[in-house]
């Protein structure tokens, strides 16, 4: 199952060139770009591992792409996302976050149905 989340989730995988251009845009907006990876891409898992610190004061996407390549080499079997953080007062949050790498075999999830009090049914996603 193809897992999608974040910005551009409706598009096919971005190429490195396209990732570079998105990063370039983020840098133009003065957003700090960071890279995170995880082996658990559950939509409720907000705690991805950081790949190094967020990269402040960058002028060019080459640095981010080099880090992304490094991260892919080390964590090729994980999901890797690129985040762009806007520190402007009033935002102070991620403005962009997209998946930049997915493992050759994607994580599988299944929907679990659970009977509860009085004929109530709960649903939950769990790793298959």
């Amino acid at each position, binding site marked *: 199952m193809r897992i999608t989340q974040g910005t551009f989730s409706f598009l096919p995988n971005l190429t490195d060139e396209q990732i570079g251009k998105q990063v370039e845009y983020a840098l133009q907006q003065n957003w700090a770009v960071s890279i995170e990876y995880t082996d658990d891409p559950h939509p409720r898992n907000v705690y991805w591992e950081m790949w*190094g*610190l967020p*990269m402040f*004061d*960058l*002028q*060019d*996407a*080459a*640095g*981010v792409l*080099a*880090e992304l390549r490094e991260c892919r080499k080390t964590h090729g079997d994980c999901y890797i996302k690129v985040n762009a953080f806007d520190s402007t007062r009033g935002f102070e949050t991620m403005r962009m976050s997209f998946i930049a790498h997915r493992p050759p075999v994607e994580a599988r999830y299944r929907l679990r149905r659970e009977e509860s009090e009085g004929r109530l049914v709960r649903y939950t996603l769990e790793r298959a």
Partner: protein
Amino acid sequence: MSESIDLKSLLADSGVGEVLDELDRELVGLVPVKTRIREIASLLVVDKARAALGVEGAKPSLHMCFTGNPGTGKTTVAMRMATILHRLGHVRKGHLVAVTRDDLVGQYIGHTAPKTKEVLKRAMGGVLFIDEAYYLYRPENERDYGQEAIEILMQVMENQREDLVVIFAGYKSRMDMFFQSNPGLGSRVAHHIDFPDYSVAELEDIAERMVVGLGLKLSDAARQALGEYLALRRAQPNFANARSLRNALDRARLRQAHRLLEAGRVDAEMLMTIEAADIRASRVFGATPARDPAEEATC
């Protein structure tokens, strides 16, 4: 049948001509430096023309080493270099990141690599200027982390040549030693540019420009005094060319301000003029025993 390209117009289009002319106009002396920069600019223009005609060649390695005594304009030229390389499309952004050993080398094991990499990432798309680069290598301490920084630098200089240009700067003798003990680094630096010391005439020219930049002017007597000052100061140890000159002018400004306050009432002309007395009060003149008494009387 072959296409042809007008190199002159290519040069004009890139806007590099302006930067080069500005360099000629605004920087005094430094003839060998300017010549080399023009050569590099020509090389890049020719390469551009080659690419336009479909002859794709590898990008030249433009890592540089600026050697010269203090105050000879290494940083200033590096700044211009970033602009020139940007206009010619060799680097994408054309900013300059100036660092020293402290910014690259960490304080404990495992601290150096991330620190160096962070600086390199910041410099990508522009020029990384490493001032007093010889401090990176400390032969007296074999466990010094500087070596680690040098290795990372070398790797990036080789593999990401199109992403950044590294300029090393430092005093000639110590830089020579530095490259001797790091032959790998020396061989990756293609351009060694030596910044000559300024002559007294050049320094006077620079002083004139600095004074205008400060919104002041020199009286004729002050100009003469400054010439004598420079001749004396130049012979003394620790002379840092334009930097010493700037300091001397700053001190002259202090004395001028003090003198004006003593005088009480001033006009615009007085506020703007540095007199000979402001310069002759310098310690440098005191150091020379033989002075012309007639001259002393005039100031």
